[in-house]
């Protein structure tokens, strides 16, 4: 004990009697003698899944915060956990993604080389600021839908809750870094999004899986291409750092999203039919959002190095990005068992035909 603490303790020394201990709690365990050892990457969450502690049931009917593997206690009033089936949230990769998110954390304030920002032509700066505004709003939607569902998820699937906590923090960081970029190079924020797809995501309150269909499979796949494009056309080291790190975070979110949808598709009868219906509706909203001129023209200006270049090469490059997004989307749909190639929304199909 430190000297300071001993001194401070004596100053606070209380004068009460000692009640007889009951030790009623001793020996109350489902499984004793567990000794998980750290591996080369430390003691990771997934390493803990040994014995009964690694048994993840298909349905978790306990509405308390009982840790998985701990002994229950009678008479505990329930909490309103509405997602209690594994297929409603599970992804095998959740524990690994959780640890990866922690290892790959980054700090916009001090790690982005802000001093490398240089004055840009006004049309380009405006386009970047507009995209920052748009991506900030996308991150906000992701943050709001995750936090809406987070506390509805049962404790039995804590790996997913923990992974989503990292995604929540990532979204907060994306909001922050996009705002910082927009306000640090002589520009400002742009105009808000019309919000078609944001609305679609936020209104998917029937279930988390349904939200994941829109948030990740449809919108997220597009955002991946958007960030990849921005990274390819970054103007300085600050932007390169920002986009590459956002992309890295986003890749984790997508990994969870795709993996969860695959789990739902293969473990819940009828899930693929629901996804197909949702996508048939969602593609229409996505197509209308893509038609909106704000993001497309801003991206074209960034790719073309200005308005003039945006009218030719820039817009062509953006349309290529949309095609790449749609090819990615169709491939993932096929992998999930919800092939959309033939029934893709006509407005989206037209991008592939051009």
């Amino acid at each position, binding site marked *: 004990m430190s000297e300071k603490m001993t001194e401070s303790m004596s100053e*606070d020394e*209380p004068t*009460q009697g000692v009640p007889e*201990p*009951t*030790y009623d*709690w001793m020996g109350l*365990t489902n499984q*004793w003698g567990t*000794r998980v050892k750290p591996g080369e*990457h*430390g*003691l990771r*969450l997934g390493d*803990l899944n040994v014995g009964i*502690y690694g048994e993840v049931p298909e349905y978790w009917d306990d509405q308390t*915060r009982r*840790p998985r593997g*701990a002994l229950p206690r009678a*008479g*505990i009033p329930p*909490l*309103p956990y509405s997602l209690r089936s594994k297929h409603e949230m599970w992804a095998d990769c959740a524990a690994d993604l959780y640890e990866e998110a*922690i290892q790959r*954390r980054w700090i916009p*304030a*001090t790690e982005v080389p802000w*001093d490398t920002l240089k004055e840009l032509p006004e*049309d380009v700066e405006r386009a970047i600021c*507009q995209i920052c505004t748009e991506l900030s*709003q996308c991150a906000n939607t992701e*943050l709001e*839908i*995750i936090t*809406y569902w*987070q*506390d509805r998820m049962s*404790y039995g699937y804590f790996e997913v*809750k923990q992974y989503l906590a990292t995604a*929540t*923090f990532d*979204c*907060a960081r994306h909001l*922050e870094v996009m705002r910082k970029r927009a*306000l*640090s190079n002589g*520009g*400002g*924020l742009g*105009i*808000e999004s*019309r*919000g078609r797809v*944001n609305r679609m995501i*936020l209104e998917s309150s029937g279930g988390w899986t349904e939200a994941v269909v829109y948030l990740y499979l449809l919108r997220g796949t597009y955002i991946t291409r958007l960030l990849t494009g921005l990274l390819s056309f970054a103007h300085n080291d600050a932007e390169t750092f920002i986009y590459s790190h956002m992309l890295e975070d986003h890749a984790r979110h997508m990994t969870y999203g795709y993996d969860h949808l695959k789990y739902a598709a293969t473990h819940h009868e009828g899930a693929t039919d629901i996804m197909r219906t949702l996508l048939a509706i969602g593609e229409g909203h996505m197509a209308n959002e893509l038609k909106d*001129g704000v993001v497309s*023209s801003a991206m074209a200006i960034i790719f073309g190095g200005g308005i003039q270049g945006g009218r030719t090469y820039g*817009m*062509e490059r953006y349309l*290529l990005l949309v095609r790449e997004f749609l090819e990615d989307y169709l491939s993932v749909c096929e992998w999930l068992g919800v092939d959309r190639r033939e029934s893709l929304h006509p407005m989206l199909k037209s991008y592939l035909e051009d």
Partner: protein
Amino acid sequence: MSEAVDTQKEYELDTSWMENMGEWGVKATPGKRGLTLADIQVGSYAELPEVSDNMTGRPRGAAVRPEAFRVGAYSVHTLSEIWLDNAEFLYEEALQRQWSSATDIPWHTLEPLPDAVEEAECLLCTFFNEVEFVAGDVPARWIAKTTPDYLEARNVLSAQVMDEARHMDVFRKRALANGGGLMRMSGATSGFVGSIDLARDFTEMSTRLHISGEGAVLTMFRMGELFGQNEAEKTMYRLCAQDEARHVAFGVMHLRCLSATAPERHEEIECYLDEAEGQLLAGQQNPAGTQAETSEALAILLGGGAEHYDEGHKKLLVIRRRQLKEYMKRVISAGFGDRFENGRSSIPERYAATG
């Protein structure tokens, strides 16, 4: 340039949005702590609405689009309901002080402990594994309900959700890493009136969660040096205390802000504090509380074994006494210290009785 790109064609570009953007010409510059959230509080972007009419999820300061969908049914849209003056600082600090339970805890320092001590540690870890994420679940819910105009406060809550996930994780790891296991749950955070979970007002929730609940736990974590049996446990408690201090600071600073800006809510807050104080030592949410079985576990850990239970119990009383003292300091700092002088609160009396 990709070969797939055809540059012959010329497209119409809609650039009308360029005439309708937020305030232009802003150039925030990094300070000695980098480019912080505080550094970008410039021009109109720093203007916080007292009442937010943002129903579309618009970033604060962005231009309004009349046809945007109203997707944000934000129930927290009044500044006094959630604001605190140092949100930017707490958020940036949270980013700087993230840690990894996989690699930052010296797990190799764990060594076999006497059975009673290992059981005591595992009971405490089961308790924390169970209750730590109440402070993740609940703030998360409030993020979704809060207007993005108050993004700084929301970002602090996002950091808290992350911190609590890590706490839930580190205590599970400890319980399963040294020959023990999880034990019986406590049920300390369950669905009853007046619980952290079921509060329908943010400040009510924050008073219970940040001021009394996490405040009591913070005092305990700070004493982890005393009951940690090895460097792994001491590090674990030290790092958790660092996070917990930010969460408690959120609650104190929010109450202070509310006290100054919404005096009409003063009596209501006093009532929450009345309830919280009733639970402070007797409630099961305090692992050092008089009703909690974790108190016995703590006495074993503080004594260094069941055979030194009495000695450990004396140290436990010191923790309880400190919890009361630090609670009073926080409430005074939040602007509600009168209750300790006008006889409303029984805490000064209880504190004196433990001396």
